């Protein structure tokens, strides 16, 4: 079943799937050929290139079947919680209750890309007064209005405060459509004053990604992330409100023991992803393309609506990546420019484009690095979750985010950085500038690009910038 790594078109994958099925490929219930998603309206798939491993097939099928999974959960009597804006803390709490399924309505921002605007979600958002001056996450508003992309949640929870202005505005508009939201406040993280107790947050220790396993990585000092005790206690209090709301919804207590179990399972997923990132980003040849890694990272936010299956998907990808590294197999050439990618792209096709231009991704910051770090298990669970929430890169100063990015660039041996702006996204407007400035100060070449949900018309310009970056990296090597 294993073939040398290569990227396949959708049609090629369907042919390969037929061969794999004939050879006895065992797939989960959501498996099958990828082409069926295209036939269901996911038109963008016909313009993407996919990794040819069965692990990647499972990843894509898992991602593209989430909608069915959510409606099935509703039919099975599960309570459905939409966890908005917070990318990694509240879902861990919600999933700690067996009768609850948590999902991420913000994820609707990719629907206009995947359906090449046929979904008309952006047009619906336009008609509701949320136009293109807002982040493409406004597609979420269209999804709530049309009620076709996910079941109406039994409970909606959204963070507010140190979050993007445009997201807050869109979420308020969602509430205005008759979807009550439990708002909780995340304060802007700050350094403790001299007379305040300082609390260490996750992700601040010298990090050895893949610790506990054989790792060729040297230790890299990550910026120390701290917050004053008063902020941790404040967030703790906000999370207690969420705990109470979840208990009301489920009709049972959400005990510390249940939360501890939930954190342990989340950490198992996070460890698998951390090791996958380490294996892929440090390998001489990329064992998996950047698009599959992007999707894998996105799973960690809310487990793609199936926490146990998410872990299996990540483990299979990791096994495939390791197998390829051991066999010295991989994608692209050994001299591909090693690029660190900042922010997720609204158009998935751009990840393929980087590779077509001679680059590969060796490090990422998709706005939720706190969801990649393990939640401390030695502390009381609510304290751990509060610390984890405060480590959110979007809740703190941009220089903290830049510091971690630069540390990871060193860790993974990246040679250049792409800051991908999201049109209208208020957090990208200033953060990109800070990250680019810090990277340039350390001597790394940087480009900033802006990627709309369907970027075909801009593809030559984006490709020109990516090619120029690759040329610059290669010229620097020769010096």
């Amino acid at each position, binding site marked *: 079943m294993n073939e040398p790594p290569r990227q396949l078109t959708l049609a090629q994958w369907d042919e390969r799937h037929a061969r794999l099925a004939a050879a006895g490929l065992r797939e989960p219930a959501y498996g099958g050929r990828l082409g069926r998603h295209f036939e269901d309206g996911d038109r963008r798939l016909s313009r993407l290139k996919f990794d040819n491993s069965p692990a990647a097939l499972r990843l894509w099928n898992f991602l593209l079947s989430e909608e069915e999974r959510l409606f099935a959960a509703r039919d099975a009597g599960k309570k459905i919680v939409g966890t908005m804006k917070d990318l990694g803390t509240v879902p861990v709490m919600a999933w700690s209750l067996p009768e609850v399924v948590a999902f991420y309505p913000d994820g609707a921002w990719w629907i206009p890309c995947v359906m090449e605007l046929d979904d008309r979600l952006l047009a619906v958002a336009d008609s509701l007064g949320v136009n293109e001056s807002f982040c493409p996450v406004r597609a979420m508003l269209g999804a709530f209005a049309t009620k076709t992309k996910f079941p109406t949640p039994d409970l909606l929870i959204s963070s507010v405060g140190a979050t993007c202005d445009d997201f807050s505005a869109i979420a308020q508009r969602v509430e205005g459509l008759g979807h009550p939201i439990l708002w909780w406040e995340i304060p802007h993280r700050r350094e403790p004053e001299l007379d305040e107790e300082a609390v260490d947050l996750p992700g601040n220790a010298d990090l050895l990604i893949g610790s506990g396993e054989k790792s060729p990585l040297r230790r890299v000092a990550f910026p120390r992330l701290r917050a004053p005790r008063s902020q941790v206690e404040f967030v703790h209090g906000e999370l207690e409100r969420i705990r109470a709301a979840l208990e009301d919804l489920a009709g049972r207590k959400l005990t510390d023991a249940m939360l501890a179990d939930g954190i342990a399972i989340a950490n198992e997923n996070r460890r698998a992803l951390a090791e996958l990132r380490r294996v892929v980003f440090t390998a001489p040849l990329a064992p998996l393309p950047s698009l599959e890694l992007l999707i894998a990272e996105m799973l960690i936010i809310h487990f793609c609506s199936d926490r146990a299956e998410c872990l299996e998907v990540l483990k299979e990808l990791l096994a495939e990546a390791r197998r390829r590294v051991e066999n010295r197999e991989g994608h692209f050439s050994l001299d591909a420019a090693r690029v660190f990618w900042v922010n997720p792209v609204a158009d998935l096709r751009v990840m393929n484009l980087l590779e077509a231009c001679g680059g590969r991704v060796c490090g990422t910051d998709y706005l939720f690095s706190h969801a990649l770090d393990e939640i401390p298990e030695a502390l009381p669970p609510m304290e751990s979750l509060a610390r984890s929430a405060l480590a959110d890169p979007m809740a703190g100063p941009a220089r903290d985010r830049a510091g971690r990015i630069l540390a990871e660039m060193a860790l993974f041996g990246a040679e250049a950085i792409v800051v991908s702006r999201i049109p209208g996204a208020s957090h990208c407007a200033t953060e990109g500038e800070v990250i680019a400035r810090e990277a340039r100060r350390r001597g790394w070449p940087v*480009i900033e690009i802006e990627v709309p949900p369907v970027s075909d018309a801009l593809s030559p310009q984006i490709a020109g910038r990516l090619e*120029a970056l690759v*040329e*610059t990296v290669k010229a620097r090597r020769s*010096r």
Partner: protein
Amino acid sequence: MIAVGIDAGSRAIKIVLLDGESREVVAAGQVDQGIEQERLAMDLLERLLAEAGLARESIKSVIATGYGRNLIGVADRTVTEITCHARGVRHQAPHARTIIEIGGQDSKLIRLDARGAVQDFAMNDRCAAGTGRFLEVVAGRLGDGLNGLGKLAARAGEAATISSMCVVFAETEIIGLLAAGTPPESIAAGVQATIASRVCAMAGRRVDEPVVFTGGVALIPGMREALSTRLARPVETVPDPRMTGALGAALIAMK
């Protein structure tokens, strides 16, 4: 043997023929860009070869650059404008550490190391503000052509403030300024200052000298001075700055 550089830009196709031995320019020319890019490029190449008395067989290598580079089938290889402009400037002004290139469709700021190699670069990517297209739109509105725009700006007592981020809105703003009786000279100077501000903003706080200005917009009177004023440092131009990208491509083709 001849090395050929073709810069298929958004407004014009430029070609430079270099003598592989002497590295002297044998012929250079440009033609307006159009739908049939490849034919336009080939016609220009044939004309330049004929004018220089050269046979097609004398061509050793062809490098294409510019926005339309991938449509130039005759090219042996494509290289981006960033690398080609850097190479061209290194040939013409070896001391340069910063290049500002303003073309028809985009503008670029390129930082070079002491050896003239690209260290880093930035490009405008949001709209036509800060590009030659902006100047064309304004020149059309003021009715004086691109060269006339520069001369107009030179006569301005005071530059008008153009606040719009978008060319289309800026054009509306200019109509309003004209209706309010603002002298066209002030508007022209204001537009040049706006473009200079946009381009210089890409540099952030770091601009290493010497600064060299290339691209077709460098030929418009007053633009070099506007950039120099905004950067608060001298800005140089190179001979025939329109051809720098094609020259760089030809130099790379010589390798």
